[in-house]
């Protein structure tokens, strides 16, 4: 089966909504099936790729950082880039520049690019399927 391209636009900030987890699962599934994925992240979703995210211990549960093993979205997305590379397909991740500026979210993991709505339009025009996940 030749690879197809899925464009996906997301808006939810990390840890606030099940939408973020589902979006990452959808991206994972598409890459795993050998398809290219173009992600346009805007509003709170630009925080998904912030390099400074860090796991933490949990004093209430009495766990250390290692025991708590708290996931971070930037690590999950790094893993998605690695999956794309292993599968020989493209994961293109664009953060909306204006949303990045408003949130101070400019220090991101490798593989992410700054862009704008035009990037999303161009991705849509080049894609076989498009999914927009709105926030509430």
């Amino acid at each position, binding site marked *: 089966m030749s690879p*197809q391209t*899925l464009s996906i636009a997301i808006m939810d900030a990390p840890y606030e909504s*099940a939408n973020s987890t589902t979006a990452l699962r*959808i991206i994972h599934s598409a890459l795993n*099936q050998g*398809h290219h994925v173009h992600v346009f992240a805007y509003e709170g979703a630009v925080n998904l790729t912030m390099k400074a995210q860090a796991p933490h211990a949990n004093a209430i549960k009495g766990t250390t950082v290692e025991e708590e093993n708290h996931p971070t979205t930037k690590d999950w997305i790094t893993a998605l880039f690695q999956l794309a590379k292993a599968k020989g397909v493209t994961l293109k991740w664009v953060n909306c520049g204006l949303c990045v500026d408003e949130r101070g979210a400019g220090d991101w993991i490798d593989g992410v690019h700054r862009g704008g709505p035009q990037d999303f339009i161009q991705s849509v025009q080049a894609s076989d*399927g*498009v999914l*927009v996940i709105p926030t509430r």
Partner: protein
Amino acid sequence: MTHYLILESRDPFDSADWATMQEMIINLRESGHDVTLFLLQNGVLIARKGTSFESHFFNLKALGINILADFFSLQERGIQNMVMDVEKSHLDRLIQLCLTPNTKTIWH
């Protein structure tokens, strides 16, 4: 005709416009389009056997609407016994449907 893939992430207990969305789904089907309803996140809550929505799913199925539910979402919510007209599925299938030619995907 267009194939509409409706991704329903909300449930009628929490979402005031869930019913409107279902109305739209029926209208799309009655207009001659193919429609697949894919339940995920809290959208699977009413796929549990015994809710008052069993007849709703029966009616959708009778119209020729295919109804799928994300296995992961079902498992998270401890839903094992499902309404007969809803089929357990997974996101791999969602991707396949989304990438089917002439498909428009709508998330609610």
